[in-house]
């Protein structure tokens, strides 16, 4: 059975299944959400208004038998944070369930009667529209718990916290993990507010007795799957007992600090003296010492990398999953906070309220810079989440993210591109990632073109992070490859083994070709990635973006970053070169 589009209209409270039109047939995941948004959403619409849509798509291989580490769900729409197109993807248990229901994508449009909130339940029989009164105003921990009691078969729960209900620009979309905890987030870009604007508090997905994922060429799929699995299981980074498995993404904290590229105290330095105290090694030590938590946690069934963790509190009870690199950096180093217990508690608050932890940490750092708190004031920082919970005027400003908060506090050191704040890599010290921040259609986003691999980690070659030379081309290659991987449903972390191990890359392509019924040599990952980028860039252009939006903030050109004492020196012409091929 060919995959279908499920279209849900929140105005009429109706749904319909549609054939996937030919023009969308070759896309999955990010590629699919982006082409649908580009085709159906007016780029000039208000992101919270009736003409925006929320599009949800699992990747090509999600839900296919034993496809390794393939639980990514893409969420797309026009972003309230950037004003441009947004694809934000998440782990958790939703992708496989949506795919096993035979769905290529879910398109949610229209708005219900004002004040009405719904829980959508999607099963093989269709969609039910239940009142969300029982979960309205609640945080995601409680929402997940209530909905697993209310609905059978341990469904996926896609939901928004209070931030999404109030349509704050830093609201993310939560997906539950196998233990039914929130913490897997399509965090970036405010798509939680887009979901809230459709009157949806939660979407429950139960794939029981669904048709499953059709695999067009099972032999080719299995051949590819084996090669990819072997690559993941043998690479030092992704194998059992490897860096990601033992320490999670936070294995990077000490390394990026060592490279002088760890943004500290609102991007005023490249090293944090407390980095080791909030590092992945310290998380592992706490888990071992306290009990009650775990490293090597998987965010969905079938993950063979298992980079997640469950962080225990002082009593040895599970507190939050997961303390990853971006979270520990944003709420730690960038706020001058070196206490992992506070970082973990703030992570819990982000997960519960439904906030992107990168933007949340950056926002607190801005408030500190603006004088609301001292850098390092962990008690004060944790207290700011109460303001958001209360939806006090201050809480609403903080919930709008970095740029709104910077205006409120008169701060000029504002580390954003296209309205979205930068993640945990300093572009002055790691130039290639700066090109990605500047030019990706998503706003400042490391995952959009992870040049860190060659610039810091020695994956896919070795490149000097401090030089400008060659970085435009490097970033484009990574942006295109990423757009492709974001469409597969595979976790982006497969990129490291497949960049280093040739058969792994071939296997990834073959597994996709097997599912889609294509010839493996008919898939050009980079070219397809560029097609996606072109669609996204064109949307942004029609939304009013120009080359002036492909720039890093001014302060990075004149404030020297220690320890390298470098500024951002990339010529504007080089940045404009990244997408010159589109013209």
């Amino acid at each position: 059975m060919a995959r279908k589009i499920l279209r849900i209209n929140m105005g009429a409270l109706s749904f319909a299944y549609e054939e996937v039109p030919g023009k969308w047939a070759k896309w999955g995941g990010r590629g699919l959400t982006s082409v649908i948004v580009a085709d159906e959403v007016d780029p000039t619409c208000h992101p919270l208004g009736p003409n925006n849509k929320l599009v949800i798509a699992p990747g090509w291989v999600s839900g296919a038998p034993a496809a390794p580490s393939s639980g990514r769900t893409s969420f797309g729409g026009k972003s309230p944070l950037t004003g441009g197109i947004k694809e934000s993807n998440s782990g958790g248990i939703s992708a496989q369930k949506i795919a096993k229901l035979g769905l290529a994508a879910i398109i949610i449009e229209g708005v219900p009667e004002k004040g009405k909130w719904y829980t959508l339940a999607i099963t093989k029989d269709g969609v039910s529209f239940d009142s969300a009164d029982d979960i309205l105003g609640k945080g995601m921990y409680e929402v997940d718990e209530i909905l697993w009691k209310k609905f059978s078969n341990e469904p996926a729960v896609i939901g928004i916290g209070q931030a999404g209900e109030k349509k704050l620009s830093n609201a993310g979309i939560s997906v539950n993990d196998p233990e039914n905890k929130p913490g897997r987030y399509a965090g970036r870009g405010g798509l939680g507010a887009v979901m809230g604007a459709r009157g949806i508090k939660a979407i429950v997905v139960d794939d029981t007795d669904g048709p499953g994922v059709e695999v067009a060429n099972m032999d080719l799929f299995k051949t590819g799957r084996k090669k990819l699995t072997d690559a993941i299981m043998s690479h030092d980074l992704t194998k059992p007992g490897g860096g990601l498995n033992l320490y999670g993404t936070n294995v990077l904290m000490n390394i990026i600090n060592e490279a002088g590229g760890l943004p500290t105290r609102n991007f005023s330095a490249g090293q944090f003296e407390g980095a080791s105290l909030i590092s992945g090694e310290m998380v592992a030590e706490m888990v071992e010492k306290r009990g009650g938590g775990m490293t090597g946690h998987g965010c969905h069934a079938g993950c063979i990398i298992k980079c997640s963790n469950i962080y225990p509190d002082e009593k040895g009870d599970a507190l939050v999953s997961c303390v990853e690199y971006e979270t520990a950096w944003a709420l730690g180093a960038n706020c001058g906070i070196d206490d992992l217990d506070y970082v973990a508690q703030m992570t819990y608050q982000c997960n519960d309220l439904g906030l992107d932890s990168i933007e949340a940490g950056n926002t607190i750092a801005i408030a500190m810079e603006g004088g609301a708190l001292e850098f390092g004031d962990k008690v004060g920082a944790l207290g700011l989440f109460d303001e958001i919970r209360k939806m006090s005027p201050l809480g609403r400003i903080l919930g709008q993210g970095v740029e709104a908060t910077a205006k409120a506090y008169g701060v000029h050191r504002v580390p954003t591109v296209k309205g979205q704040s930068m993640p945990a890599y300093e572009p002055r010290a790691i130039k290639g990632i700066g090109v990605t921040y500047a030019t990706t259609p998503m706003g400042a986003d490391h995952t959009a073109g992870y040049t860190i691999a060659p610039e810091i980690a020695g994956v896919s070659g070795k490149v000097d992070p401090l030089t400008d030379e060659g970085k435009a081309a490097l970033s484009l290659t990574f942006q295109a490859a990423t757009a492709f991987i974001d469409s597969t449903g595979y976790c982006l972390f497969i990129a490291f083994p497949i960049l280093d191990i040739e058969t792994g890359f071939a296997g990834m392509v073959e597994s996709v070709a097997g599912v889609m019924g294509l010839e493996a040599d008919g898939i050009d990952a980079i070219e397809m990635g560029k097609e996606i980028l072109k669609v996204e860039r064109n949307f942004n252009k029609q939304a009013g973006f120009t080359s002036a939006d492909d720039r890093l903030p001014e302060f990075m050109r004149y404030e020297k970053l220690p320890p390298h004492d470098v500024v951002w020196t990339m010529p504007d012409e080089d940045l404009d070169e990244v997408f010159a091929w589109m013209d």
Partner: protein
Amino acid sequence: MKVEVRVFATLRRYLPELGIGEARVMDVPDGTTLDEIRVILELPAEEVKVIMVNHLQADPEDLAADGDRITYIPAVAGG
């Protein structure tokens, strides 16, 4: 000459006496390469993916200099 050496993540198992981020100060003769220091520390070559000296990437055959801050790094990445 004196150099200070750090190891992180999976390489820490070879220098278990060091706390996270702590350095071992070593006295090595002039003309010692980074790879020779690795051998002294019994860090397996295949597990060292990147070497940094004073926050910059370096090559195994580079000579260490007095006061250098040297870091051996295994396969790492994330997001």
